[in-house]
């Protein structure tokens, strides 16, 4: 090995400092787990400390745009750019909150002797999601996707004595295995057509020569299957309700935010880098004329949100309801991609911040209630308004925000998505999305009716909330209300993180 390539390697290592910090955290967690074989309550704090270092390193290199592990000039495996860094930050913050969830959760406390496994798998999963958000090579895309999937299969069935945990992980592993296998087959065809696995190289090859139309379409759609599974888009969403209902609540919350964010980062990067021809001054993308992605995404997103919203109407389990609502939200998020413009990406980024906070909040309240009541059935929530006023009011705020009503942050998220749609002259799609929001109002408000208007069926004592969970809820409620009124910082953040490497 000569000195030049060694220098390349050192330069690359400088760019992936956050990932290195995460890997060290993973090793530390395993070591602490081995050394402290009796007292394991430090484990989550080790993890949080490692994540805080990661967050610091991410903020430090936020506006850097470069390739790491270059194979040729301007071609590399890993891309470091503001877009990827934004998603990594979002994932890191979501992980910190989910670790706090896990500390409070009764379900995780049950498997106290296996906490080491739990946090080690979680740190493996976040490393995979970081790589997903920054991969520019089909090999890395597949490997990182599998790293995330394999960790989450085990986490979904963490309490192996619980029937529904085991069932959730079985369903997850079967659906996940099939969709990643189909994606791999698509990757192999794409590799055969272009002779390269690097997205930038594939892009320049398609620009240079006319690649066979139908085969190329089949390969791209097969690759979309794997990503559609991760973001639970419509025809590939069947795992979502079962896995979300069966898994421990912290893992459900984690899957619905971090895993989905990584999937969206991967999807947007794949579509933009592989198929872009040029970006016009107004920020609209002109894609290569191989596949009509616009129509494809319009169909997928309308199908996703309609299916999610209508199926949620009949749910009686709170986790299952939130699972369908997260499918519907994936549909709204995909709308931001259908406009194929920088404004759409900005809308997705704003929506993701808001969605992350309010969904984590909703799952936190559901978990705190389940810790006390031992149930997630909506019928058991009757009369909760008088027994646990603080929890009920916070759940009301999160659900109103998920609907997208004005004084909350959820409204701002939807507003920017609709603005992007109107600017792209897609009024009909915007109207369908608006009608969907009206449908979603019904099932969110139905929960609130049970909490505040129905009388309790059986006598239960007043539910007390611990100080830690109250503080934690306030931390999540504040941004939901604040961003609903003062959202300039959110928009500024989104504007600074839309730039993808190379375009």
């Amino acid at each position, binding site marked *: 090995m000569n000195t030049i390539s060694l220098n390349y390697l050192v330069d690359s290592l400088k760019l992936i400092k956050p990932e290195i910090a995460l890997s060290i955290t993973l090793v530390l967690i395993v070591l602490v787990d081995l050394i402290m074989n009796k007292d394991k309550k430090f484990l989550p704090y080790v993890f949080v400390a490692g994540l805080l270092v990661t967050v610091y390193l991410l903020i430090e290199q936020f506006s850097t745009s470069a390739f790491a592990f270059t194979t040729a000039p301007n071609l590399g495996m890993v891309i470091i750019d503001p877009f990827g860094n934004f998603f990594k930050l979002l994932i890191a913050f979501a992980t910190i909150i989910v670790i706090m969830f896990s500390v409070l959760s009764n379900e995780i406390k049950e498997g106290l002797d296996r906490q080491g496994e739990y946090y080690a798998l979680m740190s493996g999963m976040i490393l995979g999601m970081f790589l997903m958000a920054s991969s520019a090579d089909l*090999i890395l895309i597949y490997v990182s996707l599998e790293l995330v999937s394999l960790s989450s299969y085990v986490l979904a069935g963490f309490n192996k004595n619980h029937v529904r945990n085991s069932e959730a992980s079985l369903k997850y592993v079967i659906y996940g295995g099939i969709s990643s296998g189909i994606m791999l087959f698509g990757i192999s065809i794409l*590799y055969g057509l272009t002779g390269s696995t690097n997205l930038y190289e594939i892009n320049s090859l398609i620009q240079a020569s006319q690649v066979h139309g139908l085969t190329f379409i089949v390969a791209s759609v097969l690759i979309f299957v794997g990503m559609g599974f991760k973001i639970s888009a419509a025809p590939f969403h069947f795992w979502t309700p079962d896995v979300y209902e*069966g898994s421990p609540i912290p893992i459900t919350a984690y899957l619905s935010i971090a895993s989905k964010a990584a999937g969206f980062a991967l999807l947007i990067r794949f579509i933009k880098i592989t198929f872009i021809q040029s970006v016009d001054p107004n920020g609209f993308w002109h894609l290569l004329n191989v596949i009509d992605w616009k129509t494809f995404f319009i169909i997928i997103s309308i199908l996703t949100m309609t299916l999610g919203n209508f199926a949620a109407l009949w749910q009686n389990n709170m986790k299952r309801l939130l699972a369908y609502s997260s499918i519907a939200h994936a549909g709204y998020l995909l709308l931001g991609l259908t406009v194929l413009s920088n404004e759409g990406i900005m809308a997705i980024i704003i929506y993701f911040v808001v969605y992350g906070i309010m969904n984590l909040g909703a799952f936190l309240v559901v978990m705190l209630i389940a810790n006390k009541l031992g149930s997630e059935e909506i019928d058991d929530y009757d009369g909760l308004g008088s027994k646990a006023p603080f929890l009920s009011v916070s759940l009301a705020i999160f659900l109103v925000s998920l609907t997208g009503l004005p004084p909350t942050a959820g409204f701002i998220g939807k507003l920017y998505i609709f603005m992007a749609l109107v600017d792209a002259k897609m009024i009909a799609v915007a109207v369908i999305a608006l009608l969907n929001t009206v449908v979603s109002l019904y099932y969110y408000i139905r929960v609130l009716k049970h909490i505040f208007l129905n009388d309790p069926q059986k006598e239960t004592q007043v539910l007390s909330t611990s100080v830690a969970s109250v503080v934690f809820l306030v931390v999540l409620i504040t941004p939901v209300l604040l961003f609903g009124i003062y959202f300039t910082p959110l928009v500024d953040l989104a504007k600074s993180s839309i730039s993808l490497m190379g375009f």
Partner: protein
Amino acid sequence: MIQVGLNHFLVVSTALFALGILGIVTRKNAVMVLMGIELILNSANINFIAFAKFGNFGFQGQAMALFVIILAAAEAAIALAIVLNIYKTFSTVNVDEIDTLKD
């Protein structure tokens, strides 16, 4: 004497892919479903190697196939552990009977 070319490999890999999907759709035993998934992964592997050899694309295809073999092993280990756990709790590995989470 027939020269074995790219098309022969593609026919084999597509057949394997189709058989894998067929296995997943028709089989009720969870272990058989997992075998269907393995078939799909291996059909992609054949594609990678065949394209790398006949297209003179260098070693990316072979490298990818190695990664896939390792990941397939990891996935099989995890999936079988999950199926074993299912057998302990449900006393069956028939995927149609494991449906407590339906509404």
